[in-house]
């Protein structure tokens, strides 16, 4: 008897959690291109690190600087990042020089494997490259294949997003920007909005990726092509030289890695199930403050 009373009382004491509507937020093209980009960036990153290892120095300007070839000329140093290995009293050490400051990076950069095996002496460790050993020719095969897939998918996304107006969801509006301080505070408190539209920090992040990082990494990639340089010499002027373009390509890659880390952390904090469902089925469980709207293909 007692249990019956308890059962009948419980729901009244503890109000059922009110669910927001299941809204349709991502079209099939947005979802497909998202995953194709994820695959492309994976292969481009790790094959790119293999390519970088072929000459692990970055410069500013049209050309590299080689101090040993400058006899009888004013010395010229254009390098700003150099990863290598040196012999010290304590044996060989991995060493990274960034803007004139030298750091011991043994174990990660410059020397990350067996010091008695030449394969240990790589700028980026071999386990972080595709393939898993230094192979410039094969890394270039992988890199250019996925570069083409990426560019094709970016174009498909651009056309589709203009046609289905998804592109208007991405740049932050003036109203969004007014909410920026509040949104930053909410994110710091790990309180996330689950609205119909992206919040302002999402819009800023996706705008940077889609309208700055993607065009930049493609354009700097093309600037490294001597063939394309003959057709589009202004690319060299725009980026300040082929070696600067190579540097920007590397920095843009670093920005993509940073974006990826933040992106994954945000997915985990905001509810990985809901976020993954959104990018697989297109449907997203909005917050309970979001009103149900059948005209927008909402589901309970």
């Amino acid at each position, binding site marked *: 008897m007692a249990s019956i009373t308890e059962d009948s009382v419980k729901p009244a004491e503890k109000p059922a959690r009110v669910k927001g509507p299941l809204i349709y937020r991502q079209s099939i093209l947005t979802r497909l291109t998202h995953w194709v980009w994820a695959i492309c960036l994976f292969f481009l990153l*790790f094959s790119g690190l293999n390519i970088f290892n*072929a000459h692990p120095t970055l410069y500013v300007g049209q*050309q590299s600087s080689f101090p040993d070839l400058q006899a009888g000329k004013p010395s010229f140093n254009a390098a700003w990042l150099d990863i290598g290995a040196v012999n010290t009293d304590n044996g060989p050490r991995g060493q990274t020089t960034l803007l004139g400051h030298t750091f011991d990076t043994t174990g990660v950069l410059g020397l990350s494997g067996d010091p008695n095996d030449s394969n240990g002496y790589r700028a980026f460790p071999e386990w972080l490259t595709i393939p898993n050993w230094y*192979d410039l020719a094969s890394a270039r095969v992988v890199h*250019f294949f996925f570069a083409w897939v990426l560019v094709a998918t970016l174009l498909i996304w651009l056309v589709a997003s203009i046609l289905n107006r998804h592109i208007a969801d991405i740049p932050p509006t003036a109203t969004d920007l007014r909410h920026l301080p509040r949104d930053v505070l909410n994110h710091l408190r790990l309180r996330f909005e689950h609205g119909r539209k992206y919040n302002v920090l999402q819009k800023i992040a996706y705008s940077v990726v889609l309208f700055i990082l993607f065009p930049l990494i493609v354009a700097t990639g093309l600037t*490294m092509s001597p063939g394309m340089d003959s057709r589009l010499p202004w690319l060299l002027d725009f980026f300040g030289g082929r070696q600067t373009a190579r540097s920007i390509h590397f920095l843009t890659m670093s920005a993509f890695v940073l974006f990826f880390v933040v992106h994954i952390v945000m997915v985990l904090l905001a509810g990985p*199930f809901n976020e993954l469902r959104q990018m697989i089925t297109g449907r997203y469980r909005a917050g309970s403050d979001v009103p149900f709207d059948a005209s927008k293909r909402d589901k309970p």
Partner: protein
Amino acid sequence: MNRQLLLNRRRLLGLGAASASTLMLSGCDQFNFVSDQSNPLRNVLTSANDVTYRVQRLLLGQNALAQEYTEADIKQAMRPNGSTDPQTPEYLAVKASNFASYQLKVTGLVEKPLSFSLAQLKALPARTQITRHDCVEGWSCIAKWKGPQLGPILDQAGVKPEAKYCLYHCYDTMDDGLGGSVPYYETSDLIDAHHPQTILAYSMNDMNLPIANGAPVRVRIERALGYKQAKYVHTVELVSSFANVGDGKGGYWEDNGYDWYAGI
């Protein structure tokens, strides 16, 4: 019940995410098959190089010029790469004569095979260009090159219609991967061969071409990467295919997995 299911799903997703990231960090070795040139999946990936070649040929046209620089941009000697001091008997013999016995031959699918001494090459109208050499490794170096254009020499020899490529035979040898050595060889299509900036350079930075940089003659194909700029060239042979060239990919580095076009 529902809630518990959700939690389990969440835990499952978390596990999935964790294992996916482990795979990403340690799993690059899953893709080592790309190093195997006979792997069919690698051949799918290399098809992207054909796309690059076709698209760039379409976009570039025949005569778009590589950027040329000024004297002020020559800030260092040209970085030597690959062979820097060939030791084959044939090369040592022409070197001993201070290249007086050197002959550049134009052979293969031509109406009239030609042969030029170094003095004869130097007597031809020459083009001087300050260009950027881009190595496939990623570095660049600016230098001044001088020599006759290859196009008019080919016209003089009369290229037969069935000829499709120039095959550059070199004095220097490379590791053949079997413990032996093989003379360096490289090819270009006839568009690159006739390009206005394609020259047989005998001079670099106002000096005779140094031995480390390919003396007495190297080819400059300015819209391509360094491995197209064959050094120590003694013969330009017109061929219709790569069938009888090395392993059939059109060049020493191409046979070692690098793309033939080399414009990117």
